[in-house]
């Protein structure tokens, strides 16, 4: 993993915004645009950054991370594109069904866990479905510096090809689209073959696609440090469990459909986070004692740390008799 997480206060700093546009793009994906309520400029960010959106769902607070997909130098407006997940935990449904133009919301300052390696001689992007979003801002950033890039974008059907028309119109020679329903697939081995030395590959999409690209690139002799991926794991529901918090001197219950991090927040306990998807390392918490089994779902801890030393409350759970953590 990259740099050690910096010490930050609980959560990440918030910006008050109002929804300036809601743009349905197809049956599943809608774009939401935000401007600051105080009329000031938003911070610039770098391509690949995300923000965590706070949703107030009838008293229940939902915090979901979304890639910023607008031009990083446009400080008037941020945009995210949200895919409706009817089976999900409800965050995307809330965005789709409840959020209207003019609503006031809170978002965090941008954080980038999926940035461009600007030493690269060339950037090759692989997107699957809604995984297109971080590449929208990366492409905008690279276009300003005349960067060398190409995009390979797999979508299910023409009707669900989010931003396909726009991308093809603007960059007809750089954008390549593959339709699942027409049995088209990314010719990965051929694409990796013959790329100039110093090319970096980036992948955002389903886990299977990420693993496939890492494995194929490794088999072709690519350095793993030049294959970048972003995978946010949504917290999975699980059996309720009890946790003893030694610093706060409290014992709390983690419900079936909430994460340990959400339970800490509900109890007003200071708990840091940045990505809420097991990727950034910010929420890393020491385990004081335990009797039971961990269900680790993060991409951060080393196996020996997962063996009873640490837990990532944003995605991981516990089953067993007792758990005490350092919060």
């Amino acid at each position, binding site marked *: 993993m990259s740099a050690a997480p910096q010490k930050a206060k609980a959560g990440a700093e918030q910006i008050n915004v109002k929804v300036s546009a809601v743009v349905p793009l197809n049956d599943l994906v809608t774009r939401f645009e935000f401007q600051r309520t105080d009329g000031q400029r938003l911070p610039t960010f770098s391509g690949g950054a995300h923000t965590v959106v706070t949703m107030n769902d009838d008293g229940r607070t939902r915090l979901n991370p979304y890639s910023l997909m607008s031009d990083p130098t446009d400080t008037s407006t941020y945009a995210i594109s949200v895919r409706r997940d009817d089976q999900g935990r409800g965050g995307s449904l809330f965005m789709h069904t409840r959020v209207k133009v003019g609503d006031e919301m809170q978002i965090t300052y941008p954080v980038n866990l999926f940035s461009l390696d600007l*030493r690269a001689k060339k950037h090759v992007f692989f997107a699957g479905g809604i995984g297109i979003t971080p590449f929208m801002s990366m492409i905008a950033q690279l276009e300003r510096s005349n960067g060398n890039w190409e995009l390979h974008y797999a979508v299910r059907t023409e009707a669900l090809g989010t931003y396909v028309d726009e991308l093809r119109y603007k960059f007809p020679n750089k954008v390549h689209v593959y339709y699942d329903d027409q049995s088209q697939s990314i010719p990965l081995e051929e694409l*990796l*073959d013959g*790329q100039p030395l110093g090319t970096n590959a980036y992948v955002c999409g389903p886990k299977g696609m990420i693993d496939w690209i890492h494995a194929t690139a490794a*088999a*072709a*002799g*690519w350095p793993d440090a030049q294959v970048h991926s972003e995978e946010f794991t949504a917290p999975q529901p699980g059996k309720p469990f009890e946790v003893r918090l030694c610093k706060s001197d409290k014992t709390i219950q983690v419900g079936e459909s909430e994460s340990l991090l959400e339970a800490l927040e509900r109890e007003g306990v200071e708990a840091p986070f940045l990505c809420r998807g097991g990727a950034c390392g910010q929420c890393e918490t020491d385990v004081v004692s335990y009797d039971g089994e961990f269900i680790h779902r993060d991409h951060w801890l080393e196996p020996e740390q997962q063996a009873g030393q640490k837990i990532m409350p944003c995605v991981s759970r516990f089953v067993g008799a007792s758990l005490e953590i350092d919060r």
Partner: protein
Amino acid sequence: MSKFQFPESIKSRPVYGTLEPRVGKFHLMIADAEGAEAILELAAQDSALMAKSHIIFIPNGTDYGDQLKALNPAQYYEGPSYAASVQRIRHVLANAHQGLQVYLTGTEGLMGQAQNEAMQAGIPHTFIQTEHRGSVARRMQCVHCKGITEDVMTDPFVCSHCGLNLFVRDHYSRRLAAYQGVCIDAEDPGNVPEPVELYK
């Protein structure tokens, strides 16, 4: 035997490994002097390797050339010095593609300079394999005049450019591919300890 175990030191000091065949589309091997032995051992581990390999060898007075040629690499080049070979190294890297594996072996000076070329060509330094063989001499930069003195074998030594008496540090620069040499008698000119051979 051409192997030497360097003592543990500060983090800045490079650590070398043992070359091993890796999957790749093409293989670039750069060696000087006894580094040839590491290439011979590498080739013995994977009979398919040489058909996709380019060996660049700087003998520095050794006679490993015929043995390396007998490995039948796809390309073989022998250069009289690193300086004479660097144009070729740059040319190979400039035309290379992803999937290239780089193997460096021999003296620290050779490995450091070739690693620098490979890094500038876009290969992460963590991905470049190295194995030390042969002379333990160091390539030193004088921090005062910035001149490079090659093949330093004693500590302290005299800067070949400005003539200062320099203390051999383990502080290393990847960019310069050199260790730092710092004036040892700045406070008390002329008070210079007797030079000792490195690692003795």
